[in-house]
């Protein structure tokens, strides 16, 4: 292969004076799969947008981009030229599949449009037929039905499949994917990734895959570029970069995303402490996909830190010695949270005059107990009912039937003023750190609000002292008190949320996906902070997440929810090592960790070598 499919030389993207991408070089061969890794603001999406020639107004590109089969530079090309290339030679799949599809247009015509536009089909009827064919090729269960559906009638995974069908309709030579699975559930993510991998391999499509998730890269890319602050800081084969990172930033990123490695203090590595991190090594990879295999690989690949051998038997974080105590405590004393036969049913609006309105069973009779001091994980995908459960625990919603006792307060049937005590004992840290903080309140007012009596000012000496103390506890500088939420980064905002939650000295802290909106390096810091605070203030933690890795690191007991039921519960390690229920098994097998994906890679490459050998 003398000529590359895509050659990018010294690409510079700038907005006025500001340089967003600097000196980006890339050579991508036919059928090659390259990953572009970076955190938010690293310039990775800007790079992809520049390749497509879709930079927003006021942002310009310089340098050179050459795509095989087009005889001119894509940088500075006229838009009419780019229009012939986009969707034809080069296509793109975007992050958020709901907003990326036109809500007012049926899916079939949206797929057909790209073929009609580039006249790769003779007429409308052929385009419609080919659209259904494409939808079938991305394995939508009923492609003809899907073609007639509007985007809102499909699930997230189905929408992303439709997007992929659209992108592949004209059999492009190059496919750009910008975080295509970031908005999807764990099990769906795995399926969509497999589909992308399969589709590009079958067609020998070149793939540039943009993501912040190292395990995703490990699962599908041959080569990796790591971007930071608009520059590529490291480049190499996936193996090389993920196991022998040369650049400090890569090492930091790798350390922070590896939830299965902890430092000598049992805490997750952060960018700052990454020097001590030992990247995963691949030692005789076992068969891929099976749970036992994955964990064996994990075990084998565990870093050999001074105390790692001792920890291997107790991978649960924090203070493993205390764990048995907690377990026994649950049986002996009154549980702090006790949920019995909890049912919550919602009524949908009527869709027909006759017959009862449809009912949505969000929770279908769940029971569990959380002992004081426990770190309790709730795992489930979207629609599992975990958010409903959370709302009821916090007294924000009422159960349809069953009983929910939180710190001695019964939620069922309680009136608003009876719930005040409960809310003093239980505080929540929400998922979206931007949306959950009032943008017009200063941090001082946000943090002290839970303490204030009606009409009281946040500026009394007592409250100021408490607020400053809380800020110290969450590692924010004291001058943060007089700033507004938008002046902070996502991780800092989540620290503010935590400070607000803890200032009233609750006994229970509920965290609802607190790190899912954060970058990898920040995620590790916030998780460590959360873990420290739970220990320091003797909190009981209820941690809700779709991310099994995070729950595994943080929690000692876990319940797995699916469609409003608890399908499995028990000590975290037991659930992960030996899942009994089919759904848990799928969930565990679908969840991606850096180590399991690396192990999977080694296996695949060995297979490839074997098959090539057979071919010759």
């Amino acid at each position, binding site marked *: 292969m003398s000529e590359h499919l895509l050659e990018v030389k010294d690409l510079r993207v700038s907005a006025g004076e500001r340089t967003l991408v600097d000196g980006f070089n890339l050579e991508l061969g036919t059928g090659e799969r390259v990953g572009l890794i970076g955190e938010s603001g690293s310039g990775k999406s800007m790079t992809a947008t520049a390749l*497509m020639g*879709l930079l927003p*107004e*006021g942002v310009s590109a310089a340098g050179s981009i050459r795509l095989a089969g087009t005889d001119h530079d894509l940088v500075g090309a006229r*838009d*009419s030229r780019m*229009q*012939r*290339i*986009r*969707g*034809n030679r080069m*296509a*793109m799949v*975007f992050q*958020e599949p709901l*907003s*990326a*599809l*036109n*809500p*007012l*247009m049926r899916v079939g015509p949206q797929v057909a*449009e*790209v073929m009609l*536009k*580039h006249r790769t089909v003779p007429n409308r009827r052929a385009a419609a037929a080919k659209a259904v064919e494409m939808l079938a090729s991305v394995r939508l269960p009923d492609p003809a039905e899907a073609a007639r559906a*509007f985007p*809102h*009638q499909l699930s997230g995974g189905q929408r992303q499949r439709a*997007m992929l069908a*659209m992108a592949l309709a004209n059999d492009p030579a190059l496919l750009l994917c910008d975080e295509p699975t970031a908005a999807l559930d764990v099990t769906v993510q795995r399926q969509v990734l497999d589909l992308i991998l399969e589709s590009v391999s079958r067609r020998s499509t070149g793939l540039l895959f943009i993501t912040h998730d190292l395990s995703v890269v490990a699962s599908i890319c041959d080569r990796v570029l790591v971007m930071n602050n608009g520059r590529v800081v490291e480049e190499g084969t996936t193996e090389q970069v993920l196991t022998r990172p040369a650049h400090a930033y890569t090492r930091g990123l790798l350390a922070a995303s590896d939830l299965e490695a902890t430092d000598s203090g049992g805490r997750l590595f952060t960018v700052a402490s990454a020097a001590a991190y030992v990247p995963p090594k691949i030692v005789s990879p076992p068969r891929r996909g099976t749970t036992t295999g994955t964990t064996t690989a994990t075990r084998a690949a565990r870093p050999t830190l001074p105390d790692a051998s001792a920890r291997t038997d107790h991978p649960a974080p924090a203070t493993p010695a205390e764990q048995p105590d907690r377990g026994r405590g649950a049986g002996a004393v009154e549980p702090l949270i006790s949920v019995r036969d909890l049912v919550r049913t919602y009524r949908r*609006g*009527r*869709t*027909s*005059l006759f017959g009862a309105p449809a009912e949505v069973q969000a929770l279908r009779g769940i029971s569990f107990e959380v002992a004081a001091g426990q770190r309790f994980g709730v795992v489930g995908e979207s629609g599992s009912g975990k958010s409903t459960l959370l709302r009821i625990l916090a007294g924000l919603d009422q159960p349809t039937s069953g009983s929910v006792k939180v710190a001695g307060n019964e939620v069922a049937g309680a009136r608003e003023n009876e719930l005040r005590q409960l809310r003093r004992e239980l505080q929540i840290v929400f998922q979206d750190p931007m949306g959950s903080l009032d943008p017009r309140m200063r941090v001082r007012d946000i943090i002290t609000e839970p303490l204030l009596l009606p009409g009281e000012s946040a500026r009394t000496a007592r409250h100021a002292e408490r607020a400053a103390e809380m800020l110290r506890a969450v590692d924010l500088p004291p001058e943060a008190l007089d700033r507004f939420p938008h002046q902070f980064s996502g991780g800092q905002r989540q620290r503010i949320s935590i400070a607000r939650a803890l200032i009233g000295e609750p006994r229970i802290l509920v965290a609802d996906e607190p790190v899912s909106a954060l970058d990898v390096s920040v995620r590790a810091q916030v998780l460590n902070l959360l873990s420290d605070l739970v220990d320091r203030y003797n909190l009981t933690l209820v941690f809700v997440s779709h991310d099994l890795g995070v729950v595994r690191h943080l929690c000692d007991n876990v319940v797995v929810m699916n469609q409003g039921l608890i399908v499995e519960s028990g000590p975290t390690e037991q659930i992960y090592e030996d899942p009994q229920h089919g759904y848990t098994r799928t969930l565990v097998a679908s969840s991606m960790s850096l180590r399991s994906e690396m192990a999977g890679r080694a296996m695949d490459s060995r297979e490839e070598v074997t098959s090539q050998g057979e071919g010759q």
Partner: protein
Amino acid sequence: MGIRLLINAARFAVTFMVATVAVFIFMRAVPGDPAQIALGVNATPELLAETRAEFGTDRPLPVQYFDWTLGLFRGDFGTSYVTRRDITPLILDRVQVSLILVGLAMAAALLIAVPLGTLMAVNHRRISGILLSGLSQAGVAVPGFLAAILLVVVFAVGLGWFPANGWTPPGEDFGDFLRRVFLPVLALASVQGAILTRYARSAVLEIMSEDYLRTARAKGLGRTEALVKHGLRNAAIPVLTVTGVQLAALIIGAVVIERVFVIPGLGSLLLDAVGNRDLLTVQSVVMVLVAITLTINLLVDVLYTVLDPRIRKKA
């Protein structure tokens, strides 16, 4: 979709009935005996009693209410206490004039607003967009009567292209109707158009940053093509909302323009009736306005359903 329509129709009926009760009670709460008003202060008690019997105002209130409401459904508004004439033909006449005037004005406003607003949004960073935007701001600021007077001064008095005022029904002399209706429609449309342009601009501007427009561009569609094929229908939804609200307000709000151009519209009728203390006519005009407003809302809602498939599902 069917059930949504049914619910809307039911809402229409209920609102209308509540409005009849409210209007009737408010009108009866106004001090002043219609007979006394009609006869003046020097009327004899015998004559007053006779007139009350003639108007039917000597009967109990519920009876009067049902009598009036039943009349409404038969299209009979009754006889004015002041002019002693049948209100129905008068109202029909006036409604026709108002609907034609406002309908034409709103159509013209939309014809101006949608392309101009889109243009402003597409060029919002360029000089042309900023200039247009400033112009529409000015249009919003100019009161309707000022625009009307300016138009009369320039086109009727100065250039003599159009008559300065008056109304000819379209059925009578269509050419004359067009010449007479042109200036008032322009006066109404320029102000309404300026307001709608602002909304169209912000709607298109918002749509332009939507992910699906980026997707359309990534498929190879040109900027304009993507906007027209994928953007405008989405942008139409908020514009429709404002159009509905403005349309309902304009039916009566056109009264200033009607006055300037001496057009016998519903607004003028209402003002005159209020001035003459013609209770029954006021009551009738208000009910007609209620009916028109509800009909517009119903139409807007049906259009939402047609435009947006997501609403169809929710019912």
